[in-house]
């Protein structure tokens, strides 16, 4: 994907993120994630159905990278098993940290590959997906 398309995808997911707005349904597991070094803040809801990620929703105020990365992560992870989802998240985190990772697992999430070159943005790219990871690991 060329740079222009990557930027378009990020801006589209920032301006119109998927599943924004909380259900406040008790069947969802909820977590709040803040970034201590910046101002990003998300509340994330996740619904599991027999180890399958049935739905993820979020709300909050955050920058373009944080919001778009969470939006694309949500699209990618819904419908996956807990194990598959955690594997994708693990590979995503490796990519962000500029470590070896399995490119075939990430698809669109690879647009954030170069974030490792911007120290100020690394936490933005991971705050949302690591909120999902926290929920999956604890439930």
């Amino acid at each position, binding site marked *: 994907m060329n*740079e222009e398309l990557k*930027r378009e995808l*990020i*801006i589209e997911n920032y301006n119109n993120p998927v599943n924004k707005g909380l259900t406040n349904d008790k069947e969802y597991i909820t977590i709040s994630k803040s970034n201590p070094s*910046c*101002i990003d803040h998300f509340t994330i809801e996740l619904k599991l159905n027999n180890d399958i990620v049935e739905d993820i929703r979020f709300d909050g105020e955050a920058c373009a990278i944080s919001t778009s990365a969470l939006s694309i992560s949500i699209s990618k992870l819904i419908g996956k098993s807990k194990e598959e989802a955690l594997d994708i998240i693990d590979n995503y985190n490796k990519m962000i940290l500029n470590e070896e990772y399995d490119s075939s697992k990430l698809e669109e999430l690879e647009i954030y590959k*170069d974030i490792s070159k911007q120290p*100020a943005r690394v936490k933005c790219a991971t705050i949302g997906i690591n909120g999902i990871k926290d929920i999956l690991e604890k439930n």
Partner: protein
Amino acid sequence: MDYKKDFKFLNKGIIYFDNGATTLKPNKVIEKMDEYYYEYPSNAHRGDYDISIKASEEFENVRDLVQQFINAKTDEEIVFTSGATESINMAIYGYFMNNLKSGDEVLITKSEHASVIIPWFDLENRLGIKVKYIDLNDDYTFSIDNFKKMINSNTKVISIAEITNVIGDKRDIKEITKIAHENGIKVLVDASQSIGHIKVDVTDTDVDFLAFSAHKMLGPTGVGVLYGKKELMDEINYKHGGGTSVSFESPSEIVYKDLPFKLESGTQNIAGVIGLGEAIKYLNEIGMDYIDSYTNDLKKYLVSKLKDNHNIIMYNPDVEGSILIFNVKDVFAQDTAIYLNNNGICVRAGDHCDKKLHDEIDVKNTVRVSLYFYNTKEEIDKLVTVLNNSNILEESLGI
């Protein structure tokens, strides 16, 4: 004036507009701290040898410099702390917690820093005091009339900044203190933003307590000052058991030393205090009146230049001071800050540790430019040019 010879950092090609968070440090401050570590790196108030005596003298000289700088009556009224946060906490937990009771009222505003608001909220929970907000003016500045309206027989404290860290407005502390004292109200002033910008005079204003940090006035991090009137400081019960502050033979015989030492337990940040002294000397050379008028003019220049850019929303353009908060239309504050960083300009984005001000302003997060005397019109011109771009969001992504 060109300050590049005085500040090594100014030669790096980075434009630094985050002086409200911390100021740059002049070479002289850094060299003076180096001198301590290289030439007389001993503890203070401890030894009978030459270099320890030298360290003690240098340390205590700074207490005198601080006393003169804020025009305190005696050096016993100057206590060194780790920063303004500890100073404010020392006054609130060490003095006010022992002198307030349930039902007493403390007045603050919604533009105070978290380090002021949080300890007062905690005391509300602990003691049942009531923390009340003085309504701000429409431009988010302080209103003396609203202050007067809030006073009743339960009002015991007003706790406000002399200059606020988001709006940047300057409060008339002398007038506020006069009104407070006429009503038996104690005054605690957070001078973090004012100490490096205007002449702070505790005798003229007659404040009861005043707190500030060295690092917002050209000094190092990790050092602050609590000023308090001697009779009030004597009452402070905020002791960390340790050396310097006490003498003792047995548990029943602990004797606390006199001010200021009873509030300075343990080895102090000696290099930091000595660095603060050098910062004060430098500020005295520049002149506080000059700093105040220069930074006010620089802000006016910035506002006049940004007014032509219709994508910029300014929230405090007409408030006299050195701080401007703004947003770029449809761009999150942090994305603007990262875009500016990509262009070599340092600004702060966020709520600036002011968790209540967004009740007043309709936006939670803003970009803050906070100016100081070493900033220039040329730097402002660069900022204005860089902000004159319709692709800020796209270019902030760095992808």
